[in-house]
């Protein structure tokens, strides 16, 4: 083999080695979704149930807080969590500053969702507060614990017919348990969602919430999701002035 031919051969070898290397480390867009994975794409809706926010969980007028997406009475709250609810004052709720609901609150109301499965991610659009969430399906790990996100960092994988989503790296959230129950969650919150197809148009969603700073043990609850012919619609930008104006007439729990 002469020197020119040898150079050509090495060039080809180098080229294909580079292609193999890029393919190995490239984002999962090159990873195909298995035909056996559950099909969760499309529009979904939960059958909302009115859960108690806890008979002990009172607002500044002595009324039981209402409209919770989880049964607060069933949550294994510790003393710190109950003390937080007692201390809580409505103006603290970030929703009045147009901050969207977080997790798991979004998982509990009946506004439509849209799930879009891609090879390396699933995007979930919740009509509630027009929130879009990304679940990374490309095998990546969560970032360092000190890197925090309001909606947490979500990774997912398939276990047979079940889509599993794990979310960590949450910021401290004064309403992190439920945005109507007004109980906080810490940076140690971990949410695990398991979506199992129970039929072509139904999913069972099992949610496990962990937070050792506010719960004595992990808590799991189950909801049914049904396919919906109605998808999410944008609510438009939140009107901050109008939102805050509703608080103006509400007396604070604490003297100003």
């Amino acid at each position, binding site marked *: 083999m002469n020197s020119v031919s040898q150079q050509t051969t090495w060039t080809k070898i180098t080229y294909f080695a580079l292609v193999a290397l890029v393919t190995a480390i490239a984002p999962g867009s090159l990873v195909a979704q298995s035909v056996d994975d559950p099909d969760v794409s499309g529009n979904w809706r939960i059958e909302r149930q009115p859960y108690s926010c806890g008979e002990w969980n009172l607002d500044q007028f002595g009324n039981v807080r209402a409209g919770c997406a989880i049964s607060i009475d069933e949550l294994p709250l510790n003393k710190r969590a109950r003390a937080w609810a007692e201390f809580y004052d409505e103006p603290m709720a970030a929703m009045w500053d147009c901050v969207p609901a977080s997790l798991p609150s979004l998982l509990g109301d009946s506004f439509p969702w849209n799930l879009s499965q891609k090879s390396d991610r699933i995007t979930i659009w919740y009509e509630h507060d027009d929130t879009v969430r990304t679940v990374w399906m490309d095998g990546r790990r969560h970032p360092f614990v000190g890197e925090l996100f309001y909606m947490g960092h979500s990774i997912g994988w398939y276990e047979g017919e079940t889509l599993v989503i794990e979310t960590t790296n949450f910021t401290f959230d004064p309403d992190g348990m439920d945005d109507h129950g007004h109980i906080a969650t810490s940076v140690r919150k971990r949410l695990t969602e398991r979506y199992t197809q129970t039929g072509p148009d139904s999913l069972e969603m099992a949610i496990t919430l962990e937070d050792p700073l506010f719960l004595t043990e992990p808590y799991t609850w189950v909801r049914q999701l049904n396919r919906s012919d109605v998808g999410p619609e944008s609510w*438009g930008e939140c009107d901050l002035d109008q939102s805050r104006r509703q608080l103006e007439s509400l007396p604070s729990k604490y003297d100003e």
Partner: protein
Amino acid sequence: MKLWTIAALTSVVLSLPATLQAHHTQVTFYFMDQVVEVTGVVKRWALVNPHPELVLEVTDASGETKELRVYALGVAGMMSRAGWTRDSLVPGETVTVLGSPSRASDSSMAGRSVTKASGTVLVMGGGGPPQGPSGQ
């Protein structure tokens, strides 16, 4: 001066969903177990997020006028889906609102439904298209 009259629950109110989608903590702000009826002139109607807002000019028995802010119990997205538009209510028209009074202010209330002069009833709690007279 007393502006409120307590109205009996009407077929319009009974036709509302049994559990209204609670976006915000309504029970903290309003007497949700009470229904009042107020008639006034539309000053402003805003189909905004989070809760659409109707501003009425109301006149009490002494002839004094003041503004009343009516915050819809429904959210903008659901109300749009139900047929509400930015032009559903027009400044200058007279309407009657059924709703729940505020706990802390007599200048605001939660709106459950609006009846136009034509008799058309529009549900502010979301769900269903704008309805005809008497909720039919």
